[in-house]
């Protein structure tokens, strides 16, 4: 695993990146032509949601690796990544909801992407709940791995169904957040923030894995104690 020093560097890098992101997002980038200042929430909302998809993709890959190779390391990464993914998804939905209030005039709308993201959040909250309920660690790891794979494979189907549900029977009344063509300055701000949040995700993951290491150590000691 990663050493303490590298972990600290990663943390500093994340903090520094987020500060730069804030500066570019609030000062450098111009206000949006249509939405005005409120569009600045995009630099928070979009990176959060993209990183949470990354986190769930990591869960998917690590779950497959765990089922094939049976190494605790893969399960630890999957579990940690799922937890961070849930945090980021929840924050992204909250930020999106706050963004929706001044732009759409409502806190919540059954927009396709919003609904898909919420269903994803529900699936992975279930994943974390299942974890806490299974006493045997290796069984818990196997169960969650299977659920992690299903949860990720379900995303495209959920998205398809929800998009059709919103479009087949209703005129597209829901405004898409953000303009269709993003101005270059805005792109810079968006990508800077995205990079910062990816680093932050890495930092959280490393920190979360420390907890898993301690848990493995505890289980090992308990096994020895039993013998």
């Amino acid at each position, binding site marked *: 695993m990663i050493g303490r020093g590298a972990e600290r560097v990663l943390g500093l890098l994340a903090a520094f990146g987020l500060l730069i992101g804030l500066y570019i997002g609030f000062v450098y980038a111009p206000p949006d032509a249509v939405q005005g*200042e409120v569009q600045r929430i995009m630099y928070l*909302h979009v990176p959060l949601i993209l990183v949470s998809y990354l986190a769930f993709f990591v869960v998917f890959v690590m779950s497959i690796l765990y089922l094939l190779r049976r190494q605790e390391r893969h399960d630890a990464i999957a579990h940690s990544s799922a937890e961070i993914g849930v*945090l980021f998804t929840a*924050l992204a939905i909250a930020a999106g909801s706050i*963004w929706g209030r*001044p732009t759409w005039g409502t806190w919540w709308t059954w927009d396709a992407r919003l609904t898909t993201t919420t269903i994803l959040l529900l699936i992975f909250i279930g994943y974390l709940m299942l974890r806490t309920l299974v006493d045997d660690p290796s069984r818990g790891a196997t169960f969650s791995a299977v659920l992690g794979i299903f949860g990720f494979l379900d995303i495209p189907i959920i998205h398809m169904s929800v998009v059709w549900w919103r479009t087949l029977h209703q005129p597209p009344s829901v405004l898409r957040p953000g303009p269709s063509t993003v101005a270059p300055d805005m792109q810079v701000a968006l990508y800077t923030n995205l990079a910062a949040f990816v680093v932050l995700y890495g930092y959280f993951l490393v920190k979360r894995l*420390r*907890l898993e290491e*301690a848990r493995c150590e505890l289980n090992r000691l308990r096994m020895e*104690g039993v013998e």
Partner: protein
Amino acid sequence: MNPWPYILGAYLLAAAGMVCYLVSLRRRTKAMAAQVAALQRHSKEAAS
């Protein structure tokens, strides 16, 4: 409509969420480490 309360609200909420998560991680790691240390001490005592 003044957009700044919404912008600040969104950013502060996200920041609060991140900080809470870090604090919870630290607490859980500490608790786990304490348990490990206690078990190690216990097994040492049992061995001696």
